[in-house]
């Protein structure tokens, strides 16, 4: 189906942009987590992505699988909490699925991210509407696929994914949480954005930025 590929540099740029975004929005993410969680999502994601960039900044990943397995393991071993294993598994599965390529075309990237999402679901058992990162991640991947299927290139597809992630994030606001810490609040969880869905929207903002043309 697809036009263009994501190079190893672009994929590394994705991670770097994601680090910058969570760092910039650390306080905001923590504020969201204060309302319905335990006020650490911003510092968790910042700590994790800084560890990731330190690890891969050292360079040396010759292939996509190596890169993302290292990213996943670094998140798993540096974050903790719910987001550590979930984002960690997401990237680990991307690495396991992508293989020893040095670039991914749309189909391959889609398959890898899908595997990542499945990993998140395997770990966290979240379903649509539970008010978790799933609610931003699943629509983002659907939009990514739909865009590729419509013949768009990677830039357009990742931009569509971002838009869908933002919509998915916003749709978590009225929901009553059924998974994660926010579920302890019962109905009081409604009326707040989910912090994990918000960081996931940043994940796709970073992807769209990294794969944008020119």
């Amino acid at each position, binding site marked *: 189906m697809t036009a263009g590929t994501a190079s190893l540099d672009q994929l590394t740029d994705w991670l770097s942009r994601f680090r910058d975004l969570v760092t910039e929005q650390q306080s905001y993410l*923590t504020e969201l987590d*204060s*309302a*319905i*969680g*335990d*006020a*650490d999502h*911003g*510092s*968790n994601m910042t*700590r994790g992505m800084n560890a990731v960039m330190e690890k891969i900044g050292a360079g040396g990943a010759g292939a996509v699988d190596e890169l993302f397995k290292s990213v996943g393991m670094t998140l*798993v*071993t*540096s*974050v*903790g*909490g*719910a*987001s*550590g*294993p*979930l984002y960690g598994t997401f990237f680990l599965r991307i690495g396991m699925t992508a293989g020893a390529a040095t670039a991914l075309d749309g189909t391959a990237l889609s398959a890898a991210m899908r595997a990542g999402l499945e990993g998140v679901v395997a*770990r*966290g058992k979240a379903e649509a509407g539970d008010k978790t990162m799933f609610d931003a991640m699943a629509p983002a991947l659907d939009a990514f696929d739909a865009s590729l299927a419509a013949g768009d290139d990677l830039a357009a597809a990742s931009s569509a994914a971002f838009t869908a992630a933002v919509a998915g994030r916003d749709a978590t606001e009225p929901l009553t*949480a*059924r*998974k*994660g*810490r926010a*579920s*302890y*609040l*019962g109905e*009081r969880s409604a009326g707040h954005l989910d912090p994990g869905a918000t960081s996931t929207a940043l994940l796709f903002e970073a992807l769209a930025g990294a794969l944008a043309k020119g």
Partner: protein
Amino acid sequence: MKKLINAPEAVLADALNGVAAAHPELKVDHVNRIIYRGTPTRKGKVALISGGGSGHEPLHGGFVGLGMLDAACAGEVFTSPTPDQMQEATKVADSGAGVLHIVKNYTGDVMNFEMAAEMAEAETGVKVASVVTNDDVAVEDSTWTAGRRGVGVTVLLEKIVGAAAEEGRDLAAVTDLATRVNAAGRSMGMALTSCTVPSAGKPTFEIPDDMMEIGVGIHGEPGRHRVPLAGAASIAQQLVEPILADLDFTKGPVIAMLNGMGGTPLIELYLMYGEVAKLLEKAGVKIARNLVGNYITSLDMAGCSVTLLKADDEFLKLWDAPVNTAGLRWGI
């Protein structure tokens, strides 16, 4: 934010330095952030490992020692530790008799401990069993949600199961006991104020002077309900009633814990315990043993929680067994 710290990022490392300085009888792995007993696990003794986010002290590091835990993994404040920490603790503490992971029911803790168990079994062949505590009646129990939080019962479980491991029971027996202790206990908490997470730099929630939160956990999360501030007798009632409605505690002896959230002084905790004891007596609940103090805290939050545990002769005998930890000590 007013705290006795150097910097938010350094809280855990600095606090572990203090633990190491204060407790020469413990071993602190500063890289992996694990607190061990000073002497290796006795051959044939099942090792008990727990862990969780920091900010709940003395839980869990304060419960490492003879008669309780073999090791405790410390996460960042309110953030579950990572699987590699738990895997390392599992490897080091195992004497060959297997390891029980004591996990409080939070999504992060459960997932990280699961990964740790997978890794430890796969890489080293250590037999790992887990128990997940989920005693908080403030949260509705349901398979569609994350379920109930693990709170106060975790303390009582670590003591009772720790004594059984010390006796030499095997992994299956220790795990079975842990499951039974968890099933026999219930807790309910409240907060007068929010806590402040160091990295967040300000209180997790704002609450007016005339309101309080009922049904809080131990992570500074808002509670199930915000209600008008009330006197100690009424607060006791708001904590005890949901517990008694959830499980029948009138059929035998009970271990009761009145736990402080970290920012509440002992005089208020004793006062609250007096109110709780009065209500329990009226309800026909017989308290055989009790704990009053700060055992599972939420940083500097002002507030308290009540935990009740149905305790048969087996539980009571194990409860009374010697224990020698920084946070609980008797008989030795």
